[in-house]
């Protein structure tokens, strides 16, 4: 008798550990496998059983449901009211194209046997069999772009690092996932950590880097535990170390935990932090690909960028490139969050519309009130009105509307939201998180919050709005990095689409 219960943070936050403990108490003979999450948060804790090789789900399961599940013989029958049927039949999952999250929620994240049995390491084996240039070519041809927010073509970055001659090169994974409404990095670290390890090794083989670091935020304690366990297993099984899968190639990975600074998601600030310094932004050039960690050539990539690599190698660049639209190729794990009924992770090809994500997958607002705004791409992303939901998720289309894909987070707000307050919050957040190095960001954010305060109080509204607009230009043009440079995006979009809230 074997059941599957997620160990993912969301499942745990909704009681999965208590449910697992109850099963262990009620049915001591039962084998409980802890998995990642399928990404359907409203069904968590989701308990699965396997019958004749097919997984069946039950959820959401509370501790009090355990006895009735046993009474209704849930191992063999779908009689229980919380039965969801076979997992393959769930439309929410069927409509996705899961390339990165293919295993997440299915396998034991700390079983290398499971990982291999579900196509794991196929990309790495391919990479070990070809020349480094071929790996870089494959990534370039795939059209993969950085998934952290900037959307920079990965192939160009890889080639730049590969072309450098240096005593030491590094691969640094940016898992400092601070954007509200995003949790894809966390889910993959908790649900399929070997995927990131595989992606980083491939990046190392391609660029000549032999050391890797994962910079993980401290707000993710469960992810930190799972990933450090995964690293131990990887070293013990020659996946990491001096003889990767029996070859003469070597690669190491260390996990580094941040200390609660959002700005450390900015790559140069992250590198300073990783060097043990204040997480202040560095002026560019030089770019990290030329002089990054300890001034050595460094490939800094978001978790999801690196996790996209194994499937590109395993199935080939053309396979990957055929997903998506325009210059946005492949798939993206979109994250639906906030005031939404069916929040969770939806991995789809680019081109999916906001409406599909928010209405078809998300099921509309959780409060059942009208949807008024969505914020796309984190705290530095635009607030868009309901009338713009037909926009496709595509880097270029959104950029043309003053918005961005960011890290793929979509936060839903109902009609009780006040966008002037959200604009004030955007400045406050920037003030709280600014590293302080450049004046437009450090001072601008404070002045912006003060001025928004006046607007909300109805003081000289028109003049103060002009002042905010002017400040936005200064921050956009004068800031060293995206923190100050993109804070104007939520502010301006709120002003543009929701002027009423500002009293005009």
């Amino acid at each position, binding site marked *: 008798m074997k059941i599957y219960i997620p160990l993912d*943070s*969301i499942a*745990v*936050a*909704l009681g999965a550990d208590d449910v697992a403990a109850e099963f262990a108490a009620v049915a001591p003979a039962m084998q409980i496998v802890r998995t990642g999450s399928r*990404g359907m*948060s*409203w069904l*968590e804790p989701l308990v699965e059983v396997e019958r004749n090789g097919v997984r069946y789900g039950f959820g959401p399961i509370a501790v009090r449901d355990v006895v009735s599940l046993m009474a209704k013989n849930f191992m063999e029958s779908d009689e229980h009211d919380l039965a969801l049927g076979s997992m393959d039949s769930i439309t929410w999952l069927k409509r996705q194209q899961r390339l990165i999250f293919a295993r997440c929620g299915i396998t034991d994240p700390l079983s290398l046997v499971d990982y291999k049995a579900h196509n794991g390491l196929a990309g790495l084996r391919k990479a070990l069999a070809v020349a480094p240039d071929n790996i870089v070519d494959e990534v370039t041809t795939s059209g993969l772009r950085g998934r952290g927010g900037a959307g920079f073509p990965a192939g160009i970055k890889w080639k730049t690092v590969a072309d450098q001659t240096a005593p030491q090169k590094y691969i640094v994974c940016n898992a400092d*996932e*601070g*954007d*509200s*409404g*995003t*949790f894809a*990095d*966390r*889910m993959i670290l908790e649900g399929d950590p070997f995927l990131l390890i595989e992606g980083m090794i491939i990046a190392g083989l391609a660029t000549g880097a032999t050391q890797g*670091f994962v910079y993980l935020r*401290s*707000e*993710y*304690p*469960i992810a930190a535990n799972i990933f450090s366990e995964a690293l131990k297993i990887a070293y013990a099984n020659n996946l990491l170390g001096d003889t990767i899968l029996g070859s003469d190639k070597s690669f190491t990975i*260390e996990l*580094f935990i*941040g*200390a*609660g*600074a*959002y700005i450390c998601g900015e790559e140069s600030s992250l590198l300073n*932090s*990783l*060097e*043990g*310094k*204040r*997480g202040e932004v560095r002026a560019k050039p030089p770019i990290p690909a030329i002089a990054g960690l300890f001034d050595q050539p460094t490939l800094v990539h978001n978790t999801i960028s690196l996790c996209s690599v194994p499937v590109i190698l395993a199935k080939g660049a053309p396979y990957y490139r055929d997903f998506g639209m325009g210059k946005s190729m492949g798939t993206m794990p979109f*994250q639906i*969050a*906030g*005031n*939404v009924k069916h*929040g*969770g*992770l939806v991995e789809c090809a680019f081109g999916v519309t906001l409406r599909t994500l928010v209405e078809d997958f998300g099921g509309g607002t959780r*409060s059942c009130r009208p949807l008024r705004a969505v*914020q796309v791409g984190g*705290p530095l992303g635009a607030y868009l009105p309901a009338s713009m939901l037909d926009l496709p998720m595509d880097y270029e289309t959104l950029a043309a509307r003053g918005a961005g894909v960011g890290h793929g*987070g979509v*936060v*839903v*707000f109902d009609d009780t*939201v006040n966008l002037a307050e*959200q604009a004030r*919050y955007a400045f406050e*957040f920037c003030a*709280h*998180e600014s590293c302080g190095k450049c004046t437009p960001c450090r001072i601008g954010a404070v002045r912006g919050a003060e001025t928004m305060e006046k607007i909300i109080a109805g003081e000289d509204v028109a003049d103060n709005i002009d002042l905010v607009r002017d400040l936005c230009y200064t921050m956009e043009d004068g800031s060293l990095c995206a923190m100050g440079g993109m804070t104007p995006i939520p502010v301006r979009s709120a002003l543009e689409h929701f002027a009423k809230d500002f009293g005009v």
Partner: protein
Amino acid sequence: MNSEAFQSIILPWVGKVGGVMTAMRAVQTAHKHIPPDAITCAAKLFNLSIAEVRGIVSFYDDFTNAAQGDIRVRVCQAEACQAVGSRELSRHAEQAMGLSFGETSADGQFSLEKVFCLGLCAAAPAMLINDVPHSRFDADRFDALLDKAIAK
């Protein structure tokens, strides 16, 4: 406690990548704050100035001058949680605990902290009680979870 007393915590991280940060995390975990003597000790062992170490400590929210409580309640303040009423819930948390954000109770039992995103945004609102995540809670459940944490 004098500077030497922190040696055993800090010394293992000397020479490691980002060692100062990891050492300070170890101090914070052991002492619930960063005592001035720990800064002096780290400066000596890492061959940095006291000002440099203080600069590092003051930069990061996780490192605090004042001791955190035995029970740390961290309530998310970010957008996805705002969309489902975290502003009201945060006010409730302050009232229920008799603390403002950033404060620790006089007996050292509790501290209430702001946090910006816990990655639980699909089941917002979210908080951590010590390192245990909780999400999709209302005021009543907040009180119940707090009671449960106290009972432990």
